[in-house]
């Protein structure tokens, strides 16, 4: 009797897909594409018809809102603990937010929306993991709303660096001040000041196009409580 061997593709770096029973995952394989996504790649814009659901493998994604003047503001971060396309959970066909790659993903998994709905309707393990993440995601949105109202640019900066570093699984990752200013919804000089303060305190080192976290513990102290809370929520 031939032994059952797991194919390499069974090992999904996305935690939601990896949590599925073998049978369910195998059923989805034919509709799960794989696509590398580079830095700053825009997956979707709010209001656009959303054709696909994305399951990150690594890297980090900024969920964004677009303002009338074209400015993007980050409202949440998603990595391989989740998926992108929450509007589909509410039966919507239009993206509620933008999504942009802030740390490159070597092999994101992609599923057509129709397949997503079909699988959700079975109300099986797939629906469970999706709903579970959706709840945690909404909780992180609520945290962000409060955070943006109450916390300082420096605190939010520290939080952003830690969150992104966690997603990447590395203390060094690409970053431009311009990009960070856009995502935080603040002016570039505010970011320069905040990063400068964090660097001066020895918590980070930043150079053209990249940042290194030197002292996680200190950076956690500098961040607002939202970092720890969302980290706990999202797992």
């Amino acid at each position, binding site marked *: 009797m031939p032994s059952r061997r797991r194919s390499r593709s069974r090992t999904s770096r996305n935690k939601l897909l990896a949590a599925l029973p073998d049978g369910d995952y195998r059923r989805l394989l034919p509709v799960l594409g794989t696509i590398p996504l580079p830095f700053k790649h825009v997956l979707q814009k709010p209001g656009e018809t959303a054709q696909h659901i994305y399951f990150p493998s690594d890297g980090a994604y900024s969920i964004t809102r677009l303002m009338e003047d074209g400015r993007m503001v980050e409202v949440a971060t998603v990595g391989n603990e989740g998926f992108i396309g929450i509007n589909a959970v509410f039966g919507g066909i239009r993206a509620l937010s933008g999504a942009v790659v802030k740390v490159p993903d070597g092999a994101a998994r992609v599923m057509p929306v129709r397949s997503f709905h079909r699988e959700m309707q079975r109300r099986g393990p797939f629906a469970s993991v999706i709903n579970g993440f959706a709840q945690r995601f909404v909780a992180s949105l609520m945290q962000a709303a409060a955070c943006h*109202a109450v916390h300082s640019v420096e605190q939010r900066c520290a939080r952003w660096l830690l969150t992104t570093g966690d997603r990447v699984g590395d203390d060094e990752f690409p970053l431009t001040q311009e990009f960070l200013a856009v995502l935080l919804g603040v002016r570039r000089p505010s970011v320069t000041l905040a990063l400068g303060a964090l660097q001066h305190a020895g918590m980070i080192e930043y150079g053209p196009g990249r940042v290194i976290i030197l002292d996680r513990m200190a950076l956690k102290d500098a961040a607002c409580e939202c970092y720890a809370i969302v980290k706990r929520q999202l797992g």
Partner: protein
Amino acid sequence: MSLRSVSGASVELASCLYRPLTAPKALMTTEHVSRSPNQLLASLPAADYRRLLPDFKTISLPSKHVLQKPGEPLQRVCFPGGGVVSIMHVMTDGQAVEMAAVGNEGFVGISACLGGGLQIAEALVQIPNGSAQVLELGVFQREMDRRGAFRDMINRYGQAYLASLMQSIACNALHTVEERLARWLLLTHDRIGRRDFPMTQEALAGMLGVRRSTITLAFNALRRAGLIDHVSKKIVIKNRAGLEAAACECYATIKGHFARLLP
């Protein structure tokens, strides 16, 4: 219709610009079933609403009544008949910041759409007005499983709610307290259909997540411009059009989400 402001100039009340958050829709009713004061329920086909009616419980919504506590299991969803329920995020130091609001255009208990579970936020009656219709989680989920008009309506509201929550996140980062205050006042006016409502500056500061002194500055700026006033513990909107101009784009964006997605 116009008011005389303190300076004697005539202030035009832009009542023609005011539109409720969602346009009320004519409902086919029978003599036996009166129309729900909640706009979502009122938009349901008569037969669907009639089927659900026995399962609805009516509760009153007094000021500061807590409908939902974070961390507690979600047991029911609530469809307000009027007034405003604030969805608050409670920080670790106890400070509660408003992230979203629900009036009779929506329902409280969005996690019911996501399998239930523990409640994420605190839901507090900010502006009381009458009562609400409450549905147990099991009944709600059963009705959602029918995949009919109820589910469509709930899903559309869920999308509008999430979109406006995301917009608030961006707004809180980008816009001034004055703009955010104007937005809050306008959305409240839309929800309750009255230009005046009971509210202290203290409560406003808490909701917007700023210090009392900060809200006083913002409030006074809007008052000096003749847009609002504070009269015997009530906030009064005097110049609707002016207030819309003082608000950030987020007011129109959020209102647009509800207008597009709801009946």
